[in-house]
C-alpha cells in the first residue's frame, strides 16, 4: 500500500489534493456530487473584511485549455464567512480548511487574518497577494518584494496559525518575492495564482470580459506553474503548495517532483466537478506504477 499522506506545517493531510480558492465556493455545491471528506483539505473562497459583489458581468471567457475569470473576489465578508459559511461547511467536511484572505490595504489583511485565525476549523491562512481582478490591493501586494515582506510580517504578528503567502506569476522574478516572504516569517508559499489574460469577442469587437483582462487559468498554464514551483522550491526552504493547471494524478506527481508539498486544483473543478475525486482515486495507482511508496520520496526529486 502506498502512502498518500503529506505534512504541511504540522497539519497532516490524507492526500495532497486541495481544491483551490475560488473554484470550490464553501464546498456545498460539490458535496452534491461526492463526499468531499476525501479531500486533503479545502481552500475556501477568498475573504475580505466587508462583503464584496465583485466585478461586472461577463466575468468568464473560454480559452484553449483554460478559462479567464474576473469574479473580483465576490464574497460575503469575513463576518458571514465565520458565522455562516464555515459552520455550514463543518457539517459536511470534518477536516481543517485553508482560509484565503484578501484586502485592499494592510489593515484589511490583518483584520481578516486575525478573525479567521480564531476559527478552529481553519488550519492554514493563505494570504492572497496576487489577485489580478481587484483594482486596489490584490496583485499590487504581490509584485514587489518589500511590500510582500511587510504584509507577511504584519499578518504574522497577529496570528498563530501557519501563514502561506499566495503569489502572483505576473512578475519578473517570483523567487525574489518568495524569498522576501520567507525572510519575513511566512510558513509556506502558495503558487501560482492566475496569469493576466484576455479574449476579444470578434463579432462584438470588444473584450469578452467586462473588466477587459482577467485571470487566466486551467491546464494551459500548467508548464508556467510548474516552472515557477521548481525555481521557487530551489530558492526557499518553506513548503510550497503547487497550483496551476492541475487536472490529473500525473500532474500532481509532476508538481511534487518539482518541489511542491501539496497541490491545489482550480479551474478543472469547474469544467469537471469530479476532478479532485478522480485525482484522489488515481493517485495510488499512478504511485504504484511509478514505484513511489511515499510522496516524500519524490518531493523536489527532479533536478
Amino acid at each position: 500500500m502506498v502512502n498518500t499522506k503529506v505534512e504541511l506545517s504540522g497539519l497532516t493531510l490524507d492526500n495532497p489534493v486541495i481544491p483551490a480558492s475560488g473554484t470550490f465556493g464553501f464546498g456545498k455545491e460539490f458535496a452534491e456530487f461526492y463526499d468531499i471528506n476525501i479531500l486533503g483539505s479545502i481552500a475556501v473562497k477568498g475573504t475580505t473584511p466587508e462583503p464584496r459583489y465583485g466585478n461586472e458581468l461577463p466575468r468568464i471567457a473560454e480559452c484553449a485549455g483554460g478559462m479567464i475569470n474576473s469574479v473580483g473576489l465576490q464574497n460575503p465578508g469575513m463576518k458571514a464567512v465565520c458565522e455562516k459559511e464555515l459552520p455550514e461547511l463543518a457539517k459536511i467536511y470534518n477536516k481543517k480548511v485553508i482560509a484565503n484572505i484578501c484586502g485592499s490595504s494592510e489593515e484589511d489583511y490583518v483584520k481578516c487574518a486575525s478573525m479567521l485565525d480564531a476559527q478552529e476549523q481553519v488550519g492554514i491562512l493563505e494570504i492572497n497577494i496576487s489577485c489580478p481582478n481587484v483594482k486596489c490591493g490584490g496583485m499590487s501586494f504581490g509584485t514587489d518584494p518589500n511590500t510582500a515582506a511587510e504584509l507577511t510580517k504584519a499578518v504574522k504578528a497577529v496570528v498563530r496559525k501557519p501563514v502561506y503567502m499566495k503569489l502572483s506569476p505576473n512578475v519578473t522574478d517570483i523567487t525574489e518575492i518568495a524569498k522576501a516572504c520567507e525572510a519575513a516569517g511566512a510558513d509556506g508559499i502558495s503558487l501560482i495564482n492566475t496569469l493576466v489574460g484576455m479574449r476579444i469577442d470578434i463579432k462584438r469587437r470588444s473584450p469578452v470580459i467586462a473588466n477587459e483582462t482577467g485571470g487566466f487559468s486551467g491546464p494551459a498554464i500548467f508548464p508556467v506553474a510548474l516552472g515557477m514551483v521548481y525555481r521557487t522550491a530551489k530558492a526557499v526552504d518553506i513548503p510550497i503548495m503547487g497550483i496551476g493547471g492541475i487536472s490529473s494524478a500525473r500532474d500532481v506527481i509532476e508538481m511534487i517532483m518539482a518541489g511542491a508539498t501539496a497541490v491545489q486544483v482550480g479551474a478543472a473543478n469547474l469544467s469537471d466537478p469530479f476532478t479532485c475525486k478522480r485525482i484522489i482515486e488515481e493517485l495510488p495507482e499512478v504511485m504504484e506504477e511509478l514505484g513511489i511508496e511515499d510522496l516524500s520520496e519524490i518531493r523536489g526529486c527532479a533536478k
Partner: protein
Amino acid sequence: MNDVTCAIKSNKKIADQVYEMEFYVNDDLIERPGQFVDIKLDGFFLRRPISVANKAEGSITLVYKVVGEGTKMMSSLKKGETLDLLMPLGNGYDICKAESTEDGDIYLIGGGLGVPPMYLLASSLIRAGEKPKVILGFNTSEEVFYEDKFAALGLDVTVATVDGSHGIKGMVTDAMPPEAGYVFACGPEPMLKAVYERSRDGQFSFESRMGCGFGACMGCSCRTKYGSKRICKDGPVLDREEIIW
C-alpha cells in the same frame, strides 16, 4: 445534480442555423421547465449551457443555434454518439406563482433561442390547467421554429419577425397588450427589458457566461433587489420584482 453520459437519439436542423437534439436520458431528472443542462464537448474547456426544450419518457430535447465553435461542433454530432451532461441545472420557472395571479392572461414570450424553454413550460402550464398566450419573436422567417408545435398544443400563438417576413412585423412587444398581467419570458436582454416594462408580474430567464454552471465559482452573479444571485443556480429565472436592470 448529476453527471450523466447519454446517447444522442437525433440531431437535426429545424431552422436557419438552429438544430434540435434529442438524448436518451432519465427525463425525471428535469424537475421544472426553464432548467438547463451543461454539455461537455471534446476539445473545449468550458461546458455549454442549453435549456431543456422538451422531455418525453426517457428522453429530453434541446434546441440550439450555431453561434460559435462549440455549437458548431454540436451540430456535427450524430445519432448514437454520446455526450457528457451535468443536469438538472438552475431553478427553472415556478408555474405555481402564475396560477395564483388573477388579473388576466398568462403570456409566454420567447425571443430567438429563448423560444425552446417556453415549449416545455407551455406543456407544464397546460397540464396545470392554464392556457397561456404564446408570443414568439424572430428576426426573419428563416429563423422561425416551433410555431406549429405550440399551435398543436392548442394554444393561441403569435409570431413577430423584425423584417415582417412571417407573422406580424416587429418585436414581441408589438404583439403584447399595453400591460400584460403575468409573463414568462426568455430571450435576449433587450427583449427581456422591453417585456419587463410592459408587464405587471412574471418570471424572466437570463443568460450569462458561466464558469461552472452549478453555483461554485461566482462567475455568473448578478445584482437583484435581494442581493447578488447566481444565474446558474439561483436563476436563470428571476422574478420580475427582484430584477435590477
